[in-house]
Every structure is written in structure tokens, then in C-alpha cells.
């Protein structure tokens, strides 16, 4: 029983991870408080719904396409809106990105209506797989796989590629990086698109767990921000650790103490913020 709750927790944690890691990257590496992250996630969800339900694109290609489209779509936003607020204070950034979120909700309501939408799963993902002596939904197993793959790919590209080295250099000292001939503006556009693409992936994956309405843009922002804060800004390993701690703790709390779970989810957050204000793996 404990093992199955653990697995459920990991599956939930992977959704949290995919939803949060993009935000951790844009916030940590670029120093911009992007509260519109949920809006990009929602866009990914709706795009996946349109691609799969209306255009009959198969599930996995539809996910990839939704991610790519949102990443591309985010570029003009970054160039025209976000570039203007990089140097500004936090309040400006919060105001602009919350404004964007509210606008995105209105647009989604206009296009898709305020009601919930669903997404059809292919047969292979609609079954169950045996693990720990129990049957587990294969879709949850798929989510765990996607989360692990995203983690590995991100870790590799940030730690082991030239592009990753350039991004880290630009984050540590932008002026110095530019002096060394790195086009930091283009780098930031790229990083932002990556963050938004990851958000879209999280949004598309979440449709079949918690559903999708225009309120999605704002509904899960708190828990995603909690994951980013606990993990430490801009660290991929930290985000993963935080997602696992919060995801497993949340699911276990909901199972064992459903009455108190609304508060219990904030216990790890409080503890980490007290002991390590910069997050589990944040730079001190």
C-alpha cells in the first residue's frame, strides 16, 4: 500500500516537475518573474486538445507539436514584452505577467468556452501496467517516463553542451559573457522559448489528470511556485528534488490525512524556506 502511494506520488511529482522546471529556468536564469507561465501551460493544453480531438493527430506527435508551437509562439512575446522588463523591478514584472495571464484566460474563454474540455488517450496509454504488486494506470507510467526523460535531457544540455555553458555564463555575468562574444539577447530568447515549451508539455500532460478550463492558467500557479521556491531558482536537480518531495508528500497527505492535506502541503515549503531560504539546491 505504501509503495503504491509512493508511485502515485511520483507520477504526480513528475507533472509538477515538468510544469515547474520551465519556470525555474526562466526565473532563475533570466531573473524574470514570469507569472504567465501557467498561461503558456494552458496554451499547450488547448493546442494538444485541438490537435488530437479536432485534427486527429496521434497523441505523442501532438504533444511534441504543441510544445514546439508554444515555444515558437513565445518568441514574439519575449522579444516585444519580456525584453522590456528584464531590468525592471519585480513589481513591474509581476504586474505585466499577471496581466498577460488574465488576458490569456479571456482569450481561452473566447476560443474554447469557459467549460471543461477533455482529451482522448490512445488505447496503449489507457490501460494499466503491473508494478509493486498492483495495477497502475499506464498513462501515469508514461508521465513518469516523460518526466525522467525531460530531466535527463535538460541536465545534459545545461551541464555538458556549449550552449548550456553559454547560458550559465550569461546568467552569472551578462556583461562579461557579451564581452566574450556571446549573443546574450538571442540566448535569452532561446531560454525563454525552452521554458515556455516545457510549460506547454506540462499543461498538455495535465489535461488527463486534472482537466482543462481557462482557469488552468492561474489554478496551479501556487503549487508550481512552491516547487520552484523549494527547489531553488534555476537548478534543474533542485526542481526535481522539490517536485518529488512536494508531490509524494502531497499525495501521501491526501491519502492518510485528507482533512489536513490542504495545510500539510505547505509544511515542506515552510520547513525548506526556514532552513534553506534559497531552496534545496539553490546557490547560497
Amino acid at each position: 500500500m505504501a509503495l503504491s502511494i509512493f508511485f502515485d506520488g511520483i507520477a504526480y511529482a513528475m507533472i509538477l516537475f515538468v510544469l515547474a522546471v520551465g519556470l525555474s529556468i526562466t526565473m532563475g536564469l533570466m531573473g524574470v518573474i514570469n507569472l504567465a507561465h501557467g498561461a503558456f501551460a494552458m496554451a499547450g493544453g488547448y493546442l494538444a486538445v485541438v490537435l488530437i480531438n479536432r485534427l486527429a493527430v496521434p497523441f505523442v506527435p501532438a504533444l511534441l507539436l504543441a510544445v514546439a508551437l508554444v515555444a515558437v509562439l513565445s518568441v514574439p512575446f519575449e522579444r516585444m514584452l519580456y525584453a522590456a522588463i528584464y531590468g525592471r523591478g519585480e513589481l513591474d514584472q509581476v504586474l505585466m505577467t499577471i496581466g498577460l495571464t488574465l488576458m490569456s484566460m479571456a482569450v481561452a474563454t473566447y476560443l474554447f468556452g469557459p467549460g471543461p474540455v477533455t482529451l482522448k488517450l490512445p488505447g496503449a496509454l489507457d490501460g494499466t501496467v503491473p508494478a509493486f504488486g498492483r495495477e497502475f494506470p499506464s498513462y501515469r507510467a508514461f508521465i513518469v517516463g516523460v518526466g525522467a526523460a525531460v530531466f535527463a535531457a535538460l541536465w545534459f544540455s545545461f551541464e555538458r553542451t556549449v550552449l548550456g555553458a553559454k547560458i550559465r555564463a550569461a546568467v552569472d555575468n551578462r556583461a562579461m559573457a557579451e564581452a566574450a562574444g556571446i549573443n546574450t539577447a538571442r540566448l535569452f530568447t532561446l531560454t525563454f522559448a525552452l521554458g515556455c515549451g516545457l510549460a506547454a508539455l506540462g499543461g498538455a500532460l495535465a489535461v488527463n489528470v486534472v482537466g482543462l478550463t481557462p482557469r488552468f492558467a492561474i489554478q496551479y500557479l501556487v503549487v508550481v511556485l512552491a516547487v520552484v521556491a523549494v527547489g531553488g531558482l534555476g537548478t534543474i536537480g533542485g526542481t526535481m528534488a522539490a517536485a518529488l518531495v512536494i508531490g509524494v508528500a502531497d499525495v501521501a497527505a491526501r491519502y492518510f490525512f485528507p482533512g489536513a492535506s490542504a495545510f500539510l502541503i505547505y509544511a515542506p515549503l515552510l520547513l525548506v524556506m526556514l532552513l534553506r531560504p534559497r531552496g534545496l539546491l539553490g546557490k547560497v
Partner: protein
Amino acid sequence: MNANSKRSINLLCGMAAFLLCAPLLAQPLTVKVGVVLPFSGPGGDTVEREEQAMRLYMKLHGKELGGTRIELIKRDSKEPSGATTRELVRELIFRDNVDILLAGQFSPDAIAAAPVVTQAKKLLILVNAQASFITNLSPYIVRVSAASWQIAYPMGRYAIEKPGCKKTVVGYIDYAPGRDVLAAFKSGYEKAGGTLADAIPMGGPTGVPDFTPYLRRIRDQSPDCMYIFTPGGPFTLALARTYHELRMAETGVKFLGTGDATQDSILAQYGEQALGWMSGGQYTADLDTPENKKFVAAWQAEYGKDSVPDYFTVHGYDAMAAVFHVVKTLNGKIDADKAVAALKGWKHNSPRGPIWIDPATRDVVQNIYVQKVVKMNGRYGIEVLDTIPAVRDPCKELAIGQCATAASKTK
């Protein structure tokens, strides 16, 4: 003064006289009905359909009013705290001079509006709000929708008597309406001789949770039945999805819920995953009565073949029927005391079956249908298993908690 300007003065005088007399000449009386609902709030699609249902009733029955005309004045209360509703109700009464108010999607809306309509002496017809004690807050409030006790209490008794739920676990979304449903179901269940094995709060109403841990907790206790309450819409879809993922149907635990679990308007989206679900509710679009068949046909002719009305829709429809009854009885001259008197004991043949307003509580009395999700003619629909006839609000009958204290206050 030349002749020309003299003529224009005459003309002006004539026009002024005409304008003064116009209201007297124009025979048709206009009854202003203020509609205050959260059109842009969460669940705005549901609310929009309530208003569409009101307009449909007006279209189908408009001729019955003779010379009187009904003018709907629509206001968006946006959020569920009640604060916006109170302001809008005030504004409609004192600035727009409405005669009747249709409001109260959420219980806080109705609770906030109650003192305003009491002071201003205006009839307020509750369109949805389901907290039982609301009608005790003002003598001018009449409910045509339903009270949560009316739905959950009889199901508590039914669960033991018919499907034989000896061991039952309740899961509910943890906010006032959810706790109401829990208390009512528990009360009915205990009255029939049972004891609830467990009651699981499944998170708050602001975000749809991952239902996995809750369903696992139910499953691991291997009860005979579960009784589930969520606010419907996205909650129901996510619940059905996770229920299917965890193969809950194969465990043999019977699923019972409030009508929100078998919401006709979105059933096509999740019927496959919810096959066999049972619910107790006041309406289903598949109700086999001539009155309902006529209503559904008229609805689909107006709003499209794919649009299916649900119980919210019927609340809106019946709220307008109540307005029509008042307008007809009072010949268009609306006085709140007389209007309430006209509605007390009002009997109506609604799409949901016969309903009437209990004169003692100003609350609707209606059938509760035990419904089951089935596949019929290639689509997912509802089969009515049983009818629990003419259910009064048990909360007031049994004088429970606020239902009793609030009642004694108004007396």
C-alpha cells in the same frame, strides 16, 4: 417672435404633451426582472445556459402574458463571495427599479442579497443556491432550484434500502456545500440504521485535485458503496478520468453521487468512463415525461442538437416560470408581498416533474430521481431507476443546525 419659431414652440409643446401621456397611452405594462448571475465567473457556461433557459421560457410562453411585457436586465456578479451580488442587487432595485430579482448562483450570493431584498421589499427567486437555510433569511426569498439536503438526505436512506450499502465511504469537495451534502447524507444514512465508514474531504473548490489518493483510500477500505459530491463540470470530468484509470468499476464498489456526477450537459464527454454510476438528483434530460420531451426538443431547436440541458438549465427555466406565474396572477402590477403570496403553494408542471412551493418554507418540493449512467442508442444517457416522490427540504423538517436557528429568528 416670428411665425416660424412660434410653430416650433407649438411643436415642442405637442411633443412634450405626447411624451407625458405616452406611458398612459402605451397599454402594455413592463415588468422589469433583474438577473444577477456570475456570467464571467468559474462555471460561466452553466450560468449562461440558465439565462438561455429563461429566454426560451419567455419565447415559448410570452403570449400568455397578454399585454404585459417582461424586460430582463442582466448583470454579471463575476465572483462567488456575494459582495458583488449585493452591490448589483442594490443597484438594480434602487436605480433600475426592477420588480423581481432572479439571483443566487452560489449560496453566499443569496445570503448577501437577503437583507437588501428584505429592506427594499422585493421578490428574490433563487436560481440555484442550495444552502438549506437561505429561505429563512428573508420573507421575500423563494427557491425553485433545490436544497442540498433535499438531494443528499433521501440518498442516504436509499443507499441502505435499495442497493444495500452496508459499508459506505463519502468523498466530498471540502467547502460549505460539500459539508452540507455530507451532513445530509450522513443523517439519512444513520436514520436508516447505517454508520458511515469514512468521510473524505477531497480538497477545496478552487482547483481540481488529482483524485488518485482519494479513490485509493476508498478502494483500500473495500466498502460496498461510495457517495461522492463535487461541484460538477471540470471536477466530474477529472473524477471520471481517474476512476477509469484506477479501474474502480472492477472493484465492485458501487458509485453513488449527487446529480453533479451525472451532469447531462457534459455526459457525452465522460459517459464511457462513468458507465454504471448512480446519482440522486432533481433532473435528467432523459426523463421520460411529455413535459420534459417538449422542453428538450424546444431547447435543441433553439440552441442546437448537440446542446443538452441539465439541472442548472431547468432551474433557470423554472425560475422564469415562477416569474410568469407572479406576473399573470398580479396582472403585471408587482408587489413583493402579493408576489410571495402568489408563489406560496404554486404548483407547476416542470420538465423535472411536478414541483410546488411549500407555503411554510417558500422552498420547492420536488421528486428526487435515482439515475444511472447507461449506454442507449449509441450514446451515453441516464436511466431512471427509482423516483423518490415529493421530497421536502429535510433540513427544515428535522430542524437541523442553521435551518432551525434561522427559522426561529424570522418567526
